[in-house]
């Protein structure tokens, strides 16, 4: 192995920064390769992924999840690996990798804490939660705490509006949050406690989550069963249909114009 390739191999493993500063902001081509043992392991995984599809290019999204599971974000090395696996150019891979928000483009935390700030969650308190967490963690959107544990970001609607406001950690559901509960949550994550979502499995790291997204089932015992069949809001209709009385509340309100007259 030449000295140059040793250096690039180190960079590929995420261990050392590039020895030469990029010229005009353009990093040196080609991107460094993975160390041989990493490459060998990923090649076996990639083969399994590619085999799922009639056309190999369909494997690109799962492959990007796979390389993200290796380094915690999609590196140039990871993109090169995808390109070589699928017979694409790194430019083609880069065009795809930068289109999708789930691929991280810089080193980030073990736990990605996403606060839904789309309209419904925002109105019901998502904005307040996000603001509190920024203050509490001392980071802004898409920034990571100094200990490398938590990356905070605001996310779009995550299909859990009946549990609003919602916080996602590594894409597991933390339903019906408040600023206080979310603060406790990130404190626990930073302390390394075992954290269980409202719906989903006990948290694993972001890298481990990315591997599930690449299509490799979660092999941890009890992961599929964790948190039970359905959340409380999912069962609201069924319980009502089975005769459980609705909560005492107000009936539907009068039209707007009628307010003064009442």
């Amino acid at each position: 192995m030449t000295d140059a390739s040793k250096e690039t191999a180190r960079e590929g493993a995420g261990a050392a920064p590039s020895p030469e500063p990029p010229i005009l902001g353009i990093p040196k081509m080609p991107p460094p390769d993975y160390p041989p043992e990493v490459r060998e392991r990923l090649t076996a995984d990639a083969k399994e992924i590619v085999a799922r599809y009639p056309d190999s290019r369909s494997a690109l999204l799962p492959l990007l999840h796979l390389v993200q599971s290796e380094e915690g974000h999609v590196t140039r090395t990871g993109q090169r690996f995808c390109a070589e696996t699928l017979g694409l150019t790194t430019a083609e891979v880069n065009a795809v990798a930068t289109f999708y928000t789930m691929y991280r483009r810089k080193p980030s935390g073990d736990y990605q804490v996403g606060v839904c700030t789309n309209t419904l969650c925002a109105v019901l308190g998502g904005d307040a939660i996000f603001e509190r967490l920024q203050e509490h963690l001392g980071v802004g959107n898409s920034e990571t705490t100094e200990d490398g544990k938590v990356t905070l970001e605001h996310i779009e609607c995550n299909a859990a509006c009946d549990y609003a406001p919602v916080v996602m950690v590594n894409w597991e559901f933390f339903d019906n949050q408040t600023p206080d509960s979310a603060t406790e949550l990130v404190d626990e994550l930073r302390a390394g406690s075992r954290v269980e979502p409202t719906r989903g499995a006990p948290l694993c790291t972001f890298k481990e989550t990315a591997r599930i997204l690449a299509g490799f089932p979660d092999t941890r015992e009890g992961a599929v069963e964790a948190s039970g069949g359905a959340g409380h809001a999912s069962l609201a209709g069924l319980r009502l249909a089975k005769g459980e009385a609705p909560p005492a509340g107000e009936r539907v309100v009068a039209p707007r114009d009628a307010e003064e007259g009442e």
Partner: protein
Amino acid sequence: MSVETQVDETSPSGLLSPVLSAFWDEAEPWTMATYRRHGGYSAVRKALEMDPDDLIAYVKDAGLRGRGGAGFPTGMKWQFIPQGDDKPHYLVVNADESEPGTCKDIPLLFANPHSLVEGIVIACHAIRSSHAFIYLRGEAVPVLRRLHEAVREAYQEGYLGKDALGPGRDLELTVHAGAGAYICGEETALLDSLEGRRGQPRLRPPFPAVAGLYACPTVVNNVESIASVPALIERGKEWFRSMGSEKSPGFTLYSLSGHVARPGQYEAPLGITMRQLLDATGGMRPGHRLKFWTPGGSSTPMLTDEHLDTPLDYEGVGAAGSMLGTKALQCFDETTCVVRAVTRWTEFYAHESCGKCTPCREGTYWLVQLLRDVEAGKASRDDLAKIEDIADNVNGKSFCALGDGAAAPIFSSMKFFREEYEQHVTGGGCPFDPAHSTAWADRPGSAHLEVNA
């Protein structure tokens, strides 16, 4: 999903009809054992004995319409697949549920993934496909786990794999996780994404039925549409048509969220009204009044309390000037600033615009700038006219429906709440306190102090 259960034993008011959700309260509803105990995988036996064309005709006669938003008849979509063309046919299930407010497919797949798997087997028999895909949005890992498990079980039991559809007729099912892009819910963008490209919509024609995945005939169906097929086959089209209306028959999941007393999933015949649903579920949160709501996600024009008696089916909501969409009933009470709500949705559309066409890419950007100014009290009356003008240039002039969706909340809110926009302009800012609209605003001890948004 046994033949005799549930539908006739509806709620005290006779309003609800749990079918897909009928056993979600069991201990392990996602397992094949539970699903079978409730009659699961008996429809597939029936269906595989039918001639594929007869099966398509049956689903068409039943009147099942797409549950993903557009409401296109499912059987007709299947019928469009050319036969005897010697090309592979594909079924792609759209599980990219991302429309703001929409939260039905994710809980459905979390609790009852086998209804989808069985529906897929039936649909693949009908359209003569030997490879199906589930395109699940990536941000739902708990659902991905259960889909992996359900598909594993189905392979193990022979519902998938070699000879699954009969001798010499194999069926593969691939679970594919997306990577975060709302636009991939648009069927042609989804297909590009599934081919490993940026998720950008394709020009139509050709339609996916002719040239879809890998340029082969492809059916793209929503999760709930396909998951509804086994019950339809098992209990019959007459049963299916006994619910809903002539043009909108059947049952569906309504997702109630926001400032309501009891948010959640309510499975009912199509055509119930918002008033019935709110009456049965305790209405709005105590002490508050409904101000505006969406019938099917943020891309469907908002409605107000004037529309509480609109039948929530395709025709009824259409007649009220909106769309049934995904039946995502997001309810906002009088504490909510409509300008804030619409600005946030517009920021979403700008963020999710794929950039392919100019009206949407540029229009949504400028709409956000103007709406932020309105919300902050920095806009003029001219800006309100400009917002409407830009929205008009996005609506119907964009490559795909994302542009129409972006314009919908703007037009509808301007129609019903114009004075509130003007109030922001003349009053120099937002007259609402966001602290009053939080989920905890009315809890004892909450002094609205912790929010400074």
